[in-house]
């Protein structure tokens, strides 16, 4: 199993938001996306997940499209409902992804067992982040897309998470992480993104520029 990205570019509001270099991540590897703010790291992850329709290029898993069916995404937002308990939050995601078990194991892995019954509203920012990341485990998906996963995690939790990602990769999974901090992920390709240059000619709708006239 390998995740391949070829010639990917994403347009936003008539402007190129991302021009990604081609890369290939084999099973067991964790790719690292690096680049300054605005280079399109988040956009690249969303495009790989299929949440953003690319202007051109392809994202394939084992030579097939539809990576969204195999990907779990952890973005800037933790998707935590304050009104539900920590456990109910995770259980609702497990049910949505068709997994009935593994909720307690995931809570245990992320050190949330002791607050499982309390409302998520009382969680600290770090605990909410851990709850958001715990969803990765219950989805049972093979490709993890991580957008700045260690934000608001302390050093210990950060190291724990790196170990969880390593275990996921060792089990044949793939991880793609955009991060500014060295968190000790398994080996893998490094994808350096540069902010897209001035709008490319083919990125702009000719009707908008009048080039067709």
């Amino acid at each position, binding site marked *: 199993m390998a995740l391949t990205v070829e010639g990917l570019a994403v347009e936003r509001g008539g402007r190129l938001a991302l021009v990604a270099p081609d890369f290939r991540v084999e099973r067991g590897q964790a790719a690292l996306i690096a680049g300054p703010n605005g280079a399109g790291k988040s956009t690249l992850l969303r495009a790989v997940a299929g949440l953003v329709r690319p202007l051109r290029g392809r994202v394939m898993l084992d030579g097939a499209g539809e990576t969204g*069916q195999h990907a779990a995404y952890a973005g800037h937002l933790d998707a935590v409902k304050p009104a539900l308990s920590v456990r109910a939050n995770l259980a609702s995601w497990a049910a949505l992804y068709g997994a009935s078990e593994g909720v307690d194991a995931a809570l245990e892995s992320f050190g949330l067992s002791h607050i499982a019954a309390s409302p998520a509203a009382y969680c600290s920012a770090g605990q909410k982040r851990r709850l958001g990341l715990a969803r990765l485990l219950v989805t049972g998906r093979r490709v993890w897309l991580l957008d700045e996963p260690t934000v608001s995690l302390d050093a210990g939790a950060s190291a724990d998470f790196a170990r969880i990602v390593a275990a996921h990769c060792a089990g044949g999974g793939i991880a793609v992480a955009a991060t500014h901090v060295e968190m000790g992920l398994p080996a893998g390709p490094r994808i350096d993104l540069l902010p897209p240059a001035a709008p490319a000619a083919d990125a702009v709708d000719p009707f908008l520029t009048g080039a067709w006239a």
Partner: protein
Amino acid sequence: MRALLFRDLRLALRIGGGGLMATAFFAMASLLIPIGIGGAAESLGRVAGGVIWVSALLACLLSLDRLFQADFEDGSLDHILLAPSPIEFSVLAKAAAHWLTTGAPLIVIAPLIGLTLNLAPSAFGALVLSLLIGTPALSLIGAVGAALTVGVRRGGLLLSLLVLPLYLPTMILGARAVERASTGLDPAAALYLSGAVTLAALAAAPFAAAAALRVNLR
């Protein structure tokens, strides 16, 4: 799909007392209108069907802007779209949860509101039946509007402007059925047509809302 339905029902019960808010708004709105137009018993009875239907429309609209927006704001929508169930089914589940927490409770108290508005005794059956047939269309058409305005700041107003005109057929047919029944005529034709509108919404709305969500997500 069932998982999403249960999740939304559970969230609705925890936040805002489930259907209670919409029901209370419905009762309040339909009791305010007669105070505004005066309480003469015979004129009240004549407008009762229309008043109840307009109030049901507004109550339905009240919670509609949170249908996708709440999940969009906390990032849940991304994960719902990545989930194994097709987006069309997810839309259907969310619309069903919306109907169960707003439309269904309205139907339960509608006869009581009818009583206070001096609705003709012959029209109670048609009132409940017309709401039962018509209100699912409100949630379904509303889901399309909610999907179109997801991510729009203060999109609630825009949502109302988009959706209210599309509610017209359901409202006209529902109010017409009640009116015909209250004057002793057969309301069946209006009810059949209202059912047709609901079925058309059931067939088209999930696809339209899913398409709108795909466009809006970036």
